[in-house]
């Protein structure tokens, strides 16, 4: 039952908010904050329960179903960090939308629906439920962008839907091929490879859907539009957890069912990751819009994730998970900050900012912190994962990964460029007298900072949780350890 709660609570909350919260926005946001907090508490409890059971997979299957019960859930070391991350960011997303007054009840209900859907993706124990949840994520996200987004929201929402739907339609063919060639099995049940001749086909069909979500460079063009046009809460969820669905799917489904194909695809994935690192950083460097810069930085970070995963080693897979969690928190913080400054100035244009650290010191300070976390400063959460990614990549591919060094330097460049242009420099007279972060916003920022420092100092917390799963997966790829 515990495993159902992270889905059931936000879903109930969505229903309550939608039915009871019409009218004034205060009630809706308070109720949804309560439900989001309960969800987060349950995910933390789940983490402790999982630990208490010695890291065994915890399952839950609906008892009313006969035979082909689709609603079966499981949590193990691979999904647990992402479940907790979703719980955390789900709460943050509700708190950041405190000032949404237009159809507040609908906005909060959709946010909670989105959280429930993403939770289901991470907790699903069979491919049908995984696919159902994967697509279900699109619906609330589509409406969040197209109703509460910025100027070009409708086009962006449309593009987001079509791109990811196109990818997942191919993934559906892969899943169906999988269903036809083997019975509906448990996803958390370890490695159940299908026959070798079908692996390549199934892997690439699945990867088509998963890589769009990651996103990988030629398939990434939906991302900046969707991120930029989405409301702040939407951007946080999009970057923080929706992008993780791709990496998670690769590890949860694609690798276990087609380990040989995954191993063979390793170099391709590494190249795609490398392109993401370098190209994402170049694009980020060229942006004039602060939100777009943060959006492109996601492409670069996910590149590191893919590189780590492509090595197929135990540490590499662990690093991929670590990067996903770290990026979830760091990008969440940055999108929150961009949203906060946009609320005050109604612009995101980098050139119109300057010297904000002297005008609004708390915002400026946290922004500098966030940018440093994003560039991978040692001691903050981005560093251990990306370092491991490069180390493992070097171990597997040798000097072939040298071009990634360019990406690392560019990564430092665009983050420092943003810091210099926005936080430092000549204070712009335009923003004289804007208010600094309020109490609610400081609390949000502080919780992000705690997570980022915590993960930076003790990356082992995530690595130890995922280790058992990483070991099984790396062994399936033929890795000795």
């Amino acid at each position: 039952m515990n495993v159902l709660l992270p889905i059931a609570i936000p879903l109930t909350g969505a229903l309550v908010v939608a039915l009871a919260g019409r009218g004034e926005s205060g009630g809706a946001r308070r109720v949804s904050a309560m439900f989001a907090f309960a969800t987060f508490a349950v995910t933390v409890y789940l983490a402790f329960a999982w630990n208490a059971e010695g890291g065994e997979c915890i399952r839950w299957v609906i008892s009313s179903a006969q035979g082909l019960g689709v609603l079966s859930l499981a949590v193990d070391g691979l999904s647990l960090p992402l479940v907790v991350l979703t719980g955390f960011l789900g709460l943050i997303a509700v708190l950041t939308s405190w000032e949404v007054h237009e159809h507040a009840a609908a906005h909060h209900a959709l946010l909670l629906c989105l959280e429930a859907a993403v939770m289901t993706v991470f907790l699903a124990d069979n491919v049908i439920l995984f696919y159902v949840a994967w697509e279900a994520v699109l619906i609330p996200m589509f409406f969040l962008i197209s109703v509460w987004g910025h100027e070009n929201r409708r086009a962006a929402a449309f593009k987001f839907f079509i791109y990811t739907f196109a990818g997942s339609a191919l993934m559906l063919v892969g899943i169906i091929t999988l269903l036809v060639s083997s019975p509906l099995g448990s996803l958390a049940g370890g490695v159940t490879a299908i026959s070798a001749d079908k692996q390549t086909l199934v892997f690439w069909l699945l990867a088509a859907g998963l890589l769009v979500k990651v996103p990988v460079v030629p398939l990434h063009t939906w991302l900046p539009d969707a991120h930029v046009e989405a409301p702040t809460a939407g951007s946080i969820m999009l970057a923080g957890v929706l992008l993780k669905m791709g990496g998670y799917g690769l590890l949860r489904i694609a690798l276990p069912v087609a380990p040989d194909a995954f191993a063979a695809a390793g170099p391709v994935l590494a190249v795609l990751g490398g392109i993401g690192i370098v190209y994402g950083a170049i694009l980020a460097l060229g942006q004039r819009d602060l939100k777009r810069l943060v959006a492109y930085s996601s492409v670069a970070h996910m590149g590191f994730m893919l590189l780590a995963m492509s090595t197929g080693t135990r540490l590499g897979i662990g690093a991929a998970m670590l990067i996903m969690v770290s990026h979830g928190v760091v990008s969440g913080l940055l999108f929150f900050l961009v949203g906060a400054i946009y609320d005050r100035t109604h612009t995101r244009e980098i050139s119109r900012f300057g010297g904000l650290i002297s005008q609004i010191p708390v915002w400026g300070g946290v922004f500098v912190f966030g940018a440093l976390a994003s560039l991978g400063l040692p001691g903050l959460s981005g560093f251990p994962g990306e370092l491991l990614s490069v180390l493992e990549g070097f171990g597997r591919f040798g000097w072939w990964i040298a071009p990634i060094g360019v990406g690392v330097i560019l990564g430092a460049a665009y983050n420092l460029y943003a810091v210099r242009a926005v936080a430092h420099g000549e204070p712009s007279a335009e923003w004289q007298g804007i208010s600094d972060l309020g109490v609610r916003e400081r609390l949000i920022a502080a919780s992000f900072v705690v997570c980022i420092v915590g993960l930076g100092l003790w990356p082992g917390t995530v690595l130890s949780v995922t280790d058992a799963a990483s070991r099984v997966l790396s062994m399936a790829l033929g890795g000795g350890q």
Partner: protein
Amino acid sequence: MEFVTPTVLWIPGAVVLIGVVVGLAAEAAKHRALGVGVIAVALMVAAVVCAWSAVKVSISPAFGWMFLGGGGFSTVASVVYLLAGLSVASGWRRAISTSRGGTVAGITALSAVAIQLLTSTLDLLPAILALEVVALAGYALVSAAASRRSDEAALRYFVQGGVAAGFTVLGLAVIYGVYGTTGYVRLFEIVDGGSRAAAFGMVLVLAAFAFKLGAVPFHSWAPDVYETADASVAGFLASAPKIGALMALLLLFPAGMFNEGRFPTATLAIAVMAAASIILGNLGALRQSSLGRMLGYSGIAQVGYGLIGLAAGVTGYQATALFALTYAVGVATAFFVAEAVRERRPGWDGSIGGLSGLAAEAPFLAAAMVAALLSLTGIPLLIGFWGKLFVFVAAVSADLTWLAVIGVIGSVVSFGYYGAVIRSMYTRGVETEENIPAGTRFSGRVACAVALVAGLIVVVGGVGPLIAGLDVISRLLVF
């Protein structure tokens, strides 16, 4: 129970026919609302009885050997009667305020009975008679909209349908002339794949049913008809007859006398028709600005998915039936919402752009439309997803992966036009004040309630199998 079993299978049809007679009599006696109400209630009773026998009665012959009932056949009939009943209820205001009202309801109900016969008969003669009744009812229902354009559409539909009817009769003649029987059971034993006459008959029969389905290349009537018919009527015309034609094809092709073993080219022809329907239907739908026309073209694409299931042979039997039902519920819901919108905004020109602002004005109605359109797209948590999923699984199992790929690409493209409707509803529209005509508030609410009930069915049908397990689908569709 020995006595109940065969009786309960023909009772629904009898109830509806009696309801039609009583209803028309009441209308003639100037009790129009009562008459239409009787017909709607009779259809709903029939739907409930069929649903009961779907669960309780295993497949058995009814009314002599006239048709099969029980199991999956009753499930199908139940959905047909339900859609007919909802269609009559959806057109309530028009039905009680115009002189044609009772007639439209009566013809809809008769058509539903014919469709039940069509979906379950084991004899070519009643099948073709039922097909012609459905077609004739269709012409009448389209022209009942009583506009110049609908008359034109009905006439064109009638002329094209006449050619198709010619095929049908010729096919029947060929088969009867060669084999001396029209019963499927006997024909199944004696039809020979090598015989040219049998192949000729097969092609003619296939063409006749493809016309009723609106599959490429017999599709050109569909967009006009859906656009010009009243939305409540179109909700029936776009859904139930397609169930009928697909189910009849299932009895003839994958497991019947024209099975793949004997006529391998027939399977290929169906597969090509499926692909062509999906491609051309999608391309056509993308360019439409009228909701009805868009649903017409998209309907052409949608029957393509049914044909995929048909091409998958016996493996696709259940999938085809499931798809037919889920598509029918989805498209009917879309039309019922359109009818409710027409009640709210009498000046609506039927265009997609004209729906702007609907979400702010009537959020639940807009939500029902979103559910219907996403269901037609094949998004999970909505009923249409299961239909498409099962069809694709059948196609891949039958080594028709290429068809499944065309199908999923078609689904993605379809969001281009289904999504455009959603987009329009959620844009801020012209500020419309309360423009529900005075005096029709209650009847307007009936259409709205029908749309919401249909929307609810789409969602419950989508979520239900997740909770109850996928077995529920195979239990309801036993053939």
